[in-house]
């Protein structure tokens, strides 16, 4: 609750000043908003679509849609949360077009009885990522997160990588707060489980 209410009572943020200027037709201000958030939108789009070309399209389409509908932005939440909501919807549409055989939705719930129960519990090395170079590590993370359903990986990315609050994530994805919390826990635990094979501390054999 806190984060959303703050934006209502606090003096206008730098972001809001830009948004208000853009609403009056100041394209330079809108350009500043693009510069401010294009990297984030690209990352989110790439995580959802898992396709570079689609992610590029999503960045363009999302900002164009935001520009076109700016007057409808009510300023009750952060502009960024509103933009993320647009971008997620655009990215899901791309995904649906690529995978017409499957219904792709953030509501899909594939929970099984034990998908939150850790199966493999083994300690990791203190800084396990240091055993890989940056390119290898990026490849590992990309492969690992691709294995999660879109609804899980999107919640994880918004909360843990992009730093949105639980409430902002719920708002951006049009999910309830308990749904965000449940998906986040399952996403975190599943990613942990999938990273085990790369990061588990080698066992020392004693003779």
């Amino acid at each position: 609750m806190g984060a959303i209410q703050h934006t209502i009572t606090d003096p206008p943020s730098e972001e809001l000043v830009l948004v208000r200027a853009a609403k009056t037709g100041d394209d330079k201000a809108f350009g500043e908003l693009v510069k401010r958030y294009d990297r984030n939108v690209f990352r989110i789009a790439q995580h959802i679509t898992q396709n570079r070309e689609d992610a590029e399209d999503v960045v363009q389409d999302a900002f164009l849609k935001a520009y076109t509908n700016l007057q409808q932005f009510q300023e009750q939440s952060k502009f960024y949360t509103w933009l993320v909501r647009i971008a997620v919807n655009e990215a899901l549409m791309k995904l649906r077009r690529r995978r017409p055989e499957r219904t792709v939705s953030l509501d899909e719930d594939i929970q099984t009885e034990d998908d939150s129960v850790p199966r493999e519990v083994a300690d990791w090395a203190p800084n396990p990522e240091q055993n890989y170079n940056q390119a290898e590590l990026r490849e590992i993370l990309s492969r690992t997160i691709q294995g999660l359903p879109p609804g899980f990986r999107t919640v994880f990315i918004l909360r843990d990588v992009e730093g949105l609050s639980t409430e902002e994530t719920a708002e951006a994805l049009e999910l309830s707060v308990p749904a965000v919390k449940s998906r986040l826990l399952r996403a975190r635990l599943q990613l942990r489980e999938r990273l085990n094979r790369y990061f588990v501390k080698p066992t020392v054999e004693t003779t």
Partner: protein
Amino acid sequence: MKCTEFLKELNEYLDGALDARTRAELDDHLAWCHNCYVVCDTTKKTIQIFKNTEPYELPDELRTRLQQAIQTKCQAKKKAGPQSV
């Protein structure tokens, strides 16, 4: 506290969003339950690694191209007027 109860609170524990009393209960559990300690520690590392290593950076060249494309499209939309929305 049982391990399943600990797992239910893991998110809030990792996010530092618990009241002092619940946090202390979870700390007590972690002090003797090695499995939960490992799950908690490796989940924390999972989050940190993803946070610190972004696999999808936007290259400057592509960024400039996208910004120009957005600007062009927005200008075209503006010229076309609101009926094109």
